[in-house]
């Protein structure tokens, strides 16, 4: 058994792990540069290092335990996540209009971030048991139900942005689960109706964001302020950037959320287009490797787990980067491994661990019998 373990861990993909850690290191530098002026004690920077350390431990845990064990306990994890979300609905404190944080003393975390992982595991387990290339209506309905329950609870917080991040799981289920054209047609109708209905029940601040997105110059000091300031930061960085710690937009507080949702704008300002391309390149490399893991996975469950987690990464990166320059509306979606934040940093490191887990155990010999 010990020998089996050693054989398994000898398969650990250090390229992939290394890419992830380089991205996290870039994130730390950016957080430092964005906050040292406002926060001379470097409290935010040090906290991020703490989150990374905790996340690293969680990642190791996600990596050592065979992912099939996670499949076995998937219903418990999923159930735990649902209970935490229900707890929030009953007792959550309102923070910035939404009820998405659990406070334990001075410590707080967002259960919805962990729910992303639990839902991905639950969905992968579902596909592990579902061996046909195409789903019928009943299977498709079950897969959608796994996603819809947490999404519904998060929408009630109401955290529109986080609920939207579950969308990639729907795409994975449809694209990789295999569905017939009739289901496609039905889905399109349902999504269109939900979209129209959704807009009518949105909170005013959510509507404002969408309207502002359509026309950010309408009110430069108002709701479009963030996007305008982000574009000024990015554009003024030019090709080479203003240099490390030299950005003025973030330092003088013109750019709100400059260490969280809008950290990519700080990157654009200080490191320029070159920095942007490098970071996008690192992400693309990470995704490429992860997709290779999915292809080589030894079973459907592993492949689906990897794909679900990649889908989260791709979706977060795309939404976050696109909103920096006003291609998409402003949402509170963090940039994986770079944005400041405990729950999201831990969640993405756990995802990295699970993907490595799938890759390490791609050979049949060490799997539990």
């Amino acid at each position, binding site marked *: 058994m010990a020998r089996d373990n050693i054989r398994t861990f000898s398969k650990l993909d250090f390229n992939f792990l290394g890419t992830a850690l380089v991205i996290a290191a870039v994130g730390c530098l950016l957080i430092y540069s964005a906050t040292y002026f406002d926060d001379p004690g470097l409290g935010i920077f040090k906290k991020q290092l703490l989150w990374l350390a905790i996340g690293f431990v969680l990642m190791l845990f996600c990596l050592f335990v065979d992912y099939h064990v996670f499949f076995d306990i998937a219903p418990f994890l999923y159930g735990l996540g649902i209970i935490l979300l229900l707890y929030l609905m009953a007792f959550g404190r309102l923070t910035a209009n939404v009820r998405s944080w659990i406070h334990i003393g001075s410590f707080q975390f967002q259960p919805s971030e962990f729910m992303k992982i639990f839902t991905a595991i639950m969905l992968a387990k579902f596909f592990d048991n579902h061996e046909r290339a195409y789903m019928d209506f009943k299977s498709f309905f079950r897969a959608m139900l796994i996603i819809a329950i947490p999404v519904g609870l998060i929408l009630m917080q109401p955290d529109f942005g986080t609920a939207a991040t579950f969308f990639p799981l729907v795409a994975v289920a449809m694209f990789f689960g*295999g569905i017939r054209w009739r289901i496609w047609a039905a889905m399109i109708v349902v999504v269109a109706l939900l979209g129209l209905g959704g807009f009518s029940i949105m909170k005013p601040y959510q509507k404002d964001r969408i309207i502002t997105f359509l026309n950010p110059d309408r009110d430069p000091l108002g709701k479009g302020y963030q996007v305008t300031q982000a*574009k000024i930061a990015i554009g*003024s960085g030019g090709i080479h950037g203003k240099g490390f710690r030299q950005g003025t937009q973030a330092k*003088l507080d013109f750019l709100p959320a400059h260490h969280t949702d809008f950290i990519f704008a700080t990157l654009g300002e200080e490191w320029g287009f070159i920095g*942007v391309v490098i970071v996008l390149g690192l992400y693309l490399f990470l995704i490429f490797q992860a997709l290779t893991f999915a*292809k080589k996975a030894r079973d459907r469950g592993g*492949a689906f787990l990897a794909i679900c987690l990649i889908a989260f990464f791709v979706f977060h990166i795309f939404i976050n980067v696109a909103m920096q320059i006003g291609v998409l509306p402003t949402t509170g979606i963090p940039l994986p491994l770079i944005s400041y934040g405990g729950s999201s940093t831990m969640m993405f490191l756990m995802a990295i661990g699970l993907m490595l887990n799938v890759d390490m155990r791609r050979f049949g010999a060490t799997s539990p019998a």
Partner: protein
Amino acid sequence: MRVYRDDQKFLTFRINALLWAIVVVFVFLAGSFWVVQGVQAEKYRNLSEANALREIVTPAKRGLILDRSGQKILADNQPAYSLSLDRVVMRPIVKGDPAHRVKIVAFLAHVLGVPPQEIEARFEKGKAIPIARPIPIAEDLNMPQVASIQAQAVAFPELNVVPVQRRNYPYATMAAHLMGFIGEVTEKDLARHKELKQGDLLGKRGVELMYDEYLRGRDGAQYWEYDSHGRRLAEYRPARKDPVAGDNVYLTIDFDLQRRAEQYFAENEFVGAAVALDPRNGEVLAMVSSPVFNPNVYSKRFTPDVWRTIASNPFKVELNRAIQGLYSPGSVFKAVMAMAGLSEGAIDTSTSFYCSGSGVFFGRRFRCYNKNGHGDVSVANALKVSCDIFFFNVGARLGIDRIAEYAHKLTFGEISRIDLDGEKPGIVPSTQWAAVKQHRKWYPSETISVAIGQGPLIVTPLQVANMMAAIANGGTVYRPHVVKMIEKVSPDGKVDRLQVASEVLHKVTLAPKALETVKLGLWKVVNEEGGTGGNARIEGLNVSGKTGTVQVIAQHGWVKTEGLPYKYKDHAWFASFAPKDNPQMVVVVFVEHGGHGGVDAAPLAKLLYESRFRQQFNDANLDLSNPDTLEAIKEGQAPIPGQVKKAPAAPAGSNPNLGH
């Protein structure tokens, strides 16, 4: 364990398709960044430099508070100097010289004459303010302080002496309870009013609080360009927003009456309250609560000790006794008893009872204050001499619930909805009150105490004034108000005046015969020999009123109040109106532990009537005993303000008592 087999190709194909889709998305994102950072870089570089704008708030001038004539300004704004600290400038200096922070704290402590911990506390408090905005450090600098700070401008460039407008109450303690004061916003205020910022000042009590939305105005802003080292360059003029001054508020308060009443309390060192109001419209002409405080001391940012000093004062300085002080009405309540008895037919104008000095009711012996007794008395004379036995009998005939009904009708037991904060409703006991609030049975003998205004019955001086006003004007209960007019002066100089309309809360149907008899009794109190209120008599003016002397502790036997220690001394009341026919002013005076209503409270009423009716004809030496003058007063030539526009008596929703 499920090794997947049948759809390996299916998955591989789709994973490859996904990879290419992601590559396309990334190329698209990189292309978008190229447009912003490569093609449009120059445009955004310029914007970034021009956009290094910082907002400097230009505070709005707070509206004035004036008396009813507009001649006397009771609250204005005085030029003063504040000190603020710019952290954007301070940061790089502290980076270069870590000792700088200690130096600046020591310097400020020295110049301002406060301990260094206090300076640290102000730094700490400023952390809630965004870094781009300066934090307030001190207010009201004197000239030597301004000079020492400016002499050190090179050493401490982050310090700015800012000319500001400081709230000032020129008459200091005058009408302090009514005017209220201002103070710094709290977290609670910020949550309620979206337009406020950390560090703003706003009304905290009284008119300053209730009419804050009018008085406050709207802050303006200037946008200044800064370089990346935090140095100020030039103003970006197109974005400038001019401040809009607050509206001026004209009180219904008559300056002379208010001052005279306050002097009376100050000279006699009396604790208590006085209210003068116009029974024709509910305007409050004077409202005094003694002792007083100085709102100039409250209306500052950095006065942590003031609250403690004032809150610990044994005489409860901050209490507005006129609307928050709850007292037994004593014999003043006999006016209500007479009205109830006559209206309900429990007595008629000729019903008389024999007073021997005491009497037995419901098995207990009750004493009249006059141990020798008043003999046979009917209602008008019972009011005149304030015979307790007569009203014990009326109370016994009416029963508590009919008494309570009339007390409620005549404004007791509920707030009057005056446009001031913190008004208290008082208590009107009834059988239902005993059952619901006290979970007990009401004993008929308690009714006897209530009949002379004692027992659980408690009222505010304002309620007594409202009761008198309703009797004076024949049954109309107005909503009392202290603000007469709001004056909006727009930036182009256009003046828009909103008159506060008088508001009738309800009308009480009082039988004309009953009304006439009660008024006659009240007239006798002041104008006939042997009446208890002779000290308020003005020849010819026909002041009508009722005295009250409230026992503070239960006494067994007849005790003279003069011999008692202060805290056991009786409370003194005098509630009145004048002239008897066509009344134009109600005056209620209450002196806590004052002794006798007729001796200690009535003289102030006399002073106020003299002042008012002389002033009405613009003649300080007016002979009030001249029949012609009195004829004019009787006809009510005092001008009632024309009502240009109707406005609510208080900003909607700002009165925490509304809806009770």
